[in-house]
């Protein structure tokens, strides 16, 4: 996430030199630290609000979390974090998030491609609908899919006779996580496709490349960072998702219990330190995937330059 200079350096310099040459302001401006020589007001109040808000709402709670986990001895921490039930819950969380993020990335590429490349009836309508999972409460998503996938539901009546159990299974978790993740994948690939110029493709095809070769060797490498970002966003979102999963998974320990559900179960038993220990593992995993996105983004920007 490289940022361009917020204030055009030429402007700053000219304003600064004006101020310095002005009467009565000889050294007042020059003596202040460089970043305060900006003539715009509101730095103090802006920084004050930002820092106190972040401290109160973000840093203090995180500190409380770490302090609570520190109440456990290392062996107790390990026991909480690495119990058989916890391991099963991480596995379910990781597996379902990974599979649904892969599906989201593939569907995202398909939808972005179709929406950007083809002119067809209903294109605007589909485009607008893709934002719905961003706006729809996840509880509604979980409720609807659990009703659709049960044996007499609209989807279940076709799937259950085929032996595909959607409700109260991992498949159900994967479906709702895909619903939640698809818009991330579409919206990260779409702008990249839109900004592509036709000339590289035309060059490739004029040199005799087939349509598939052009896609594989010309378009796909350029789309890859966008696809990866979408995948990682969907994955990180999936790791933490609770609202939709709780309706559909049945929450059976060792089978369909995800890590956030286990945290809530521990909380309801009032075992706060154990809940906190599992929470730290979960947050660590999603922070790692978000850090990977940022690293990839920086790398791809350097590549683009």
């Amino acid at each position, binding site marked *: 996430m490289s*940022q361009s200079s*917020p204030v055009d350096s030429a*402007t700053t310099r000219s304003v600064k030199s004006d101020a310095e040459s002005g009467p009565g302001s000889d050294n007042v401006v020059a003596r202040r630290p460089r970043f305060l020589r*900006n*003539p*715009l*007001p*509101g*730095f103090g109040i*802006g*920084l004050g*609000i*930002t820092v106190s*808000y*972040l401290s109160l*709402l*973000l840093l203090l*709670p*995180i500190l*409380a*979390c770490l*302090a609570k986990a520190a109440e456990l001895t290392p062996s107790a921490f390990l026991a909480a974090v690495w119990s058989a039930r916890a391991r099963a819950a991480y596995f379910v969380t990781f597996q379902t998030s990974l599979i649904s993020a892969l599906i989201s990335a593939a569907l995202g590429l398909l*939808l972005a491609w*179709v929406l950007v490349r083809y002119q*067809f009836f209903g294109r605007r309508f589909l485009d607008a*609908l893709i934002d*719905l999972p*961003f*706006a*729809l*409460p*996840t*509880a*509604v998503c979980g*409720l*609807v899919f659990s*009703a*659709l996938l049960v044996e007499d539901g609209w989807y279940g009546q076709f799937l259950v006779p085929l032996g595909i159990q959607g409700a109260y299974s991992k498949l159900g978790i994967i479906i709702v996580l*895909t619903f939640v993740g698809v818009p*991330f994948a579409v*919206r990260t690939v779409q702008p990249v496709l839109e900004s592509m110029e036709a000339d590289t493709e*035309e060059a490739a095809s004029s040199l005799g490349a087939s*349509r598939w070769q052009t896609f594989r060797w010309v378009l796909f490498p350029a789309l890859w960072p966008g696809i990866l*970002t979408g995948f990682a966003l969907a994955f*990180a979102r999936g790791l*933490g*998702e*609770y609202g939709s999963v709780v309706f559909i998974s049945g929450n059976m320990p060792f089978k369909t219990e995800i890590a*956030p559900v286990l*945290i*809530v179960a521990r*909380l309801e038993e*009032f075992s706060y330190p154990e809940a*906190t220990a599992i*929470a730290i593992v*979960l947050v660590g995993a*999603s*922070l790692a995937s*978000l850090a990977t996105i*940022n690293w990839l983004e920086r790398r791809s920007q350097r590549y683009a330059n």
Partner: protein
Amino acid sequence: MQIKHHHSAHVPTATPGEPFWIRCLLIFAAYVVVFGLILIPLAYVFFEALRPGLQTFWSNLVDDPDTRHAIWLTVTVAPIAVILNTIFGLAAAWTITKFRFPGRALLMSLLDVPFAISPVVAGLMFVLLFGMQGYLGPTLREYGIKLIFAWPGLVIATTFITMPFIARELIPLMQSLGSDEELAAVSLGANRWQLFWRITLPNIKWGLLYGIIQCNARAIGEFGAVYVVSGHIAGETDTMPLRVEKLFQEYNNPGSFAVATVLTLMALSTLVLKVLLEHWIAAQDAARFKEAEES
């Protein structure tokens, strides 16, 4: 990690194309995905809620005092969170885009952290801090302040989850606008309120509104964090999404779907507003571009 939303201006142009049958196949696949994953579930909410008849649907919604209270609670908690985050978003975006100072990059990355924290974990953190056995809970209780298992806790948890939305919308926008207009205004003697109301706000108003709409949608729908801090006291601390879950657990499907329709209608109005805003933003961009070309 910025997701770009404003793309409605784009219209497909002729590029070296695939064979006709592949195009048809891909468009058909896109229709199947969007209908199967999004449109049919959406329609099903209304179908299931209205199946017992309009009368029953209506009485499910208004005759249950706990449901009425849940609706009222959601429409009060969400706006408070949105207002707090609007103030924060403006302050953070102004500080980060108009000034360079040590720690600026750190502040930017801190803004992303709530995205990495599972809503359930967010709720847990506030329970650890403000709960009865929490670090600050007992002290607060001596002063008669109860945050967890009460509505202020819902506000805190919702505010945390929706914290980055407005700031993340404003920062790239204000960065691309630059500071030239503000610097000119200051050199002409504008004070800080004139600067904000006459220069900055008119420039960022659509982007700000866009951020507010997204923030509001997420605040209304927030489940995990609110689930942990609310304590599920029916008629007291159940918001609409929590009410949906509770009715579902009580095997009251018609009731659950009735509340879900209200949430879905809110999501749909968010979607319509977003589409309209994208048009306005595109129009504003075009006007600005024209202006820049003429001068």
